């Protein structure tokens, strides 16, 4: 038997594009028996410096690259990845991927999206900044952030350090429909983690503050980040337990964001078709109070979750997930959509070595009109939560029980800090009992929420 063999040219990793490499690999896959395939190539540079108590503690620098290949042999598929772009290695990878695919069973709904659905053009989403910062500048940023944290309060006696990170990279996605897309992105971040000590007992409390931006010029000053970190650490000093009690609970921006992340997992296609979500079969139903409207917007300019096309090459867009408490849409890629009889929502997320899954872009709760002060002011006795720890969330049932710390509210005012308590309830009920939504939405990551108040939860302490 005579077989046609194509060969792969070794990539010129240091310059130029990966388009040719992607095209060569796809052709090779076809020769090995693949009926469809797609390939992701990502490369980038990262820099990170950690400063502790005024001196450099750790400095890290790297360049990396990775290639992921997914092939379909009829309705069977497999995924592989490598960091070795040499010709021999890639040829071996392609043939191994096809062999692997032939070893699993047929999955009737598997496959690439329809060729007609692929994104054709996309706007520049302002995700990349070509500012190159010198090593000394970045060390300086971390030092200034930490110094500001120490200067802000004499009770800050120690530090877990301040870290400045910068990275930039490029993603190329190509598939056997002829789709080729690529985009560049960057990020700059500073985080500061001071430790405050109580003079009498010697008890320590740590907290942190951070900011991440795609453009260096948009980063808040190192001083403001350090000062906010200290404010958060110092206010925890003297924290105590409270008695076990059912009370109203106010979640600050960060912890409300974690509730929104729970909602995001519950509406993700993979959990739904596996029947592992507490929001199963709820499309069109009321799942939250009428104050709740949630969007997922993949096209926000400069957004930390923005991308021009998703992990399968479909155009991203703005999806309405919850409108006035009614569940309007799930988050789906092609596969989970087909399993549920629906179309992709452009939410395929792709880490290089894995088949697509579903992920949010910029997923947020639309702000209300109340200030956080008004919300706290509405509580006679209750809890203001500022930090949550642990994994006590059952996504199948919605049962929720997590370690918390924050402040006790009495007569509408924050009184003393509290810790070593848990808050418990069920997410299904919690979303329905959000009775106030703050006006304070700020994007600090790809999932964001303003302050929210839940009518009542069980607080366990003494």
């Amino acid at each position, binding site marked *: 038997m005579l077989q046609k063999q194509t060969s792969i040219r070794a990539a010129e990793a240091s310059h130029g594009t990966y388009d040719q490499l992607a095209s060569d690999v796809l052709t090779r896959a076809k020769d090995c028996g693949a009926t469809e395939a797609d390939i992701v190539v990502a490369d980038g540079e990262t820099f990170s410096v950690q400063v502790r108590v005024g001196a450099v503690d750790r400095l890290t620098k790297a360049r990396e690259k990775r290639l992921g290949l997914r092939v379909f042999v009829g309705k069977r598929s*497999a995924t592989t*990845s490598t960091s070795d772009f040499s010709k021999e290695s890639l040829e071996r990878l392609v043939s191994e991927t096809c062999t692997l695919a032939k070893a699993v069973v047929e999955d009737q709904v598997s496959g690439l999206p329809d060729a007609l659905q692929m994104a054709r053009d996309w706007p520049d989403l302002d995700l990349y900044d070509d500012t190159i910062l010198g090593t000394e500048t970045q060390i300086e940023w971390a030092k200034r952030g930490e110094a500001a944290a120490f200067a802000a309060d004499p009770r800050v006696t120690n530090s877990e350090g301040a870290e400045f990170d910068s990275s930039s990279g490029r993603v190329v996605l190509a598939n056997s429909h002829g789709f080729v897309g690529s985009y560049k992105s960057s990020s700059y971040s500073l985080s500061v983690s001071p430790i405050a000590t109580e003079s009498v007992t010697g008890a320590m409390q*740590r907290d942190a503050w951070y900011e991440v931006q795609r453009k260096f010029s948009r980063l808040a000053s190192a001083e403001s980040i350090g000062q906010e970190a200290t404010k958060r650490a110092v206010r925890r000093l003297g924290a105590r337990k409270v008695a076990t009690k059912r009370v109203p609970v106010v979640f600050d921006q960060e912890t409300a964001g974690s509730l929104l992340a729970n909602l995001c997992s519950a509406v993700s296609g993979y959990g739904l078709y596996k029947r592992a979500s507490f929001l199963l079969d709820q499309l069109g139903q009321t799942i939250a109070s009428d104050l709740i409207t949630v969007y997922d917007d993949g096209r926000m300019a400069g957004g930390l979750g923005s991308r021009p096309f998703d992990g399968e090459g479909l155009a991203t867009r703005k999806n309405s997930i919850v409108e006035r408490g009614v569940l309007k849409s799930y988050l789906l890629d092609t596969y989970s959509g087909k399993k549920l009889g629906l179309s992709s929502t452009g939410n395929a997320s792709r880490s290089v070595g894995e088949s697509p899954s579903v992920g949010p872009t910029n997923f947020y709760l639309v702000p209300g009109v109340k200030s956080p002060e008004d919300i706290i002011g509405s509580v006679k006795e209750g809890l203001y939560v500022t930090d949550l*720890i642990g994994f006590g969330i059952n996504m199948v049932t919605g049962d929720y029980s997590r*370690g918390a710390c924050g402040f006790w509210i009495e007569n509408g005012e924050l009184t003393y800090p509290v810790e070593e308590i848990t808050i*418990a309830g069920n997410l299904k009920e919690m979303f329905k009992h959000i009775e106030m939504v703050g006006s304070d939405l700020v994007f600090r990551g790809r999932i964001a929420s303003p302050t929210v108040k839940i009518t009542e939860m069980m607080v366990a302490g003494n």
Partner: protein
Amino acid sequence: MTNQVQLATFGVTELEAQHALDRLSVRDVDYADLYFESRVSESVSMEEGLVKRASKSISQGVGVRATAGEKTGFAYSDELTKKDLEIAADTARYIANSPKGDRAVPVPTQTRPTRDLYPVERAQAEAATPERVALLNEIDAEARRYDPRIKNVMASFNTEYKVVAVATSDGTLVGDVQPLSRLQITCIAEENGNRQVGSYGGGGRVGFEWYREESRHLGYAREAAREAILNLSAVDAPAGVMPVVLAGGWPGILLHEAIGHGLEADFNRKKTSAFSSLIGKRVASDVCTIVDDGTLPFRRGSLNMDDEGTPTGCTTLIEKGILRGYITDKLNARLMGIALTGNGRRESYQSVVLPRMTNTFMLAGESDPQDIVRSVKKGLYAVSFGGGQVDITNGKFVFSASEAYLIEDGKITKPVKGATLIGNGPEILTKVSMVGHDLKLDNGIGTCGKDGQSVPVGVGLPTLKIDEITVGGTQG
């Protein structure tokens, strides 16, 4: 079977490694090392009765590090040419503010770990895909056979075959071959609109045949199904302070969170741990002796050597209630002037070394487990947990039960829904009043996260009683 690893495996000559170390060893540098790693990971998974996903990932690279005082300079590369090594070395020594290598390092002497805790042939460690597929199919059938209310079975089998070599400025060159695998099963049970989940799994540095020994895989399938079915009848968990009995094995996650992280040397050198300056002090009742032991054969948390080439050992953390020691890596041991314990670990060549746990467990006590349960009038009996977390600085830790029961008048009664337990690390073990004679290690499923790095670990515990801890249920 030998675990001697040659640098040639990575396409690097000893001369090139020597040259890079020379370049790193400038005046202020105390120590430098090169960590070469190649890793092949494979995974197959099933859901809805179909083994429909298979993946394989190949990575290779080098991490280059120099330390000067408290400072660490670190760079990594997925290319292993002489030039890449040089660039990485120049980045790493930036922290020392010195221009160029001005000091020769000793020629690395090839050694090998003194033992092999996991002599598994590669072919056994990385079973062929059809064998993995057959294993998962049997699991699916067994879980569904256990009870018709099991509506979905999700199972995955993952293997990793890692080859590492460490060349150091103190003149050693040592390598290891580290196989690792894990089987994980999750079942969803459904009855009259009530849906519940149960999970079980196991693994270690073992060959594929281990999973079939005494039909271990089928036992795991039944356990996952049993937990899901049990939770169908679970009642709401209580809230408040009460006595809690922990079953042996995986509930040892208590030690990992409450004690283990707080005893990692880095936090104590920086005095940011709630355990800083408590060495020699009482932090547990006298029935508690806790160790971190990286030398148990075939265990998930075990290693012949840590990622700095130091042989792992068994470190006593707490002896009859008294805090004895920290777990260390080279940087922190040097700066603190304490012994190396072989706990310097990293997720991959792309990560820096940190002091990390291996297998952390409490030694057996003298109580009869049944007497322990009988001694509780009203409390909780917790058998299995999801995950846990700790705030190192204030010592508060949580861990979340996934299978638990009420104890009423000394008897185990109704199953309760999962609840989070919360306590204070330096205090909680002083409330341990009874320790069973039934020490059990977990099945090999634990992954510990720290600073964004995941490493495999083990835990273990005999049945024990905590006189009081806060249980975060919903029923007051």
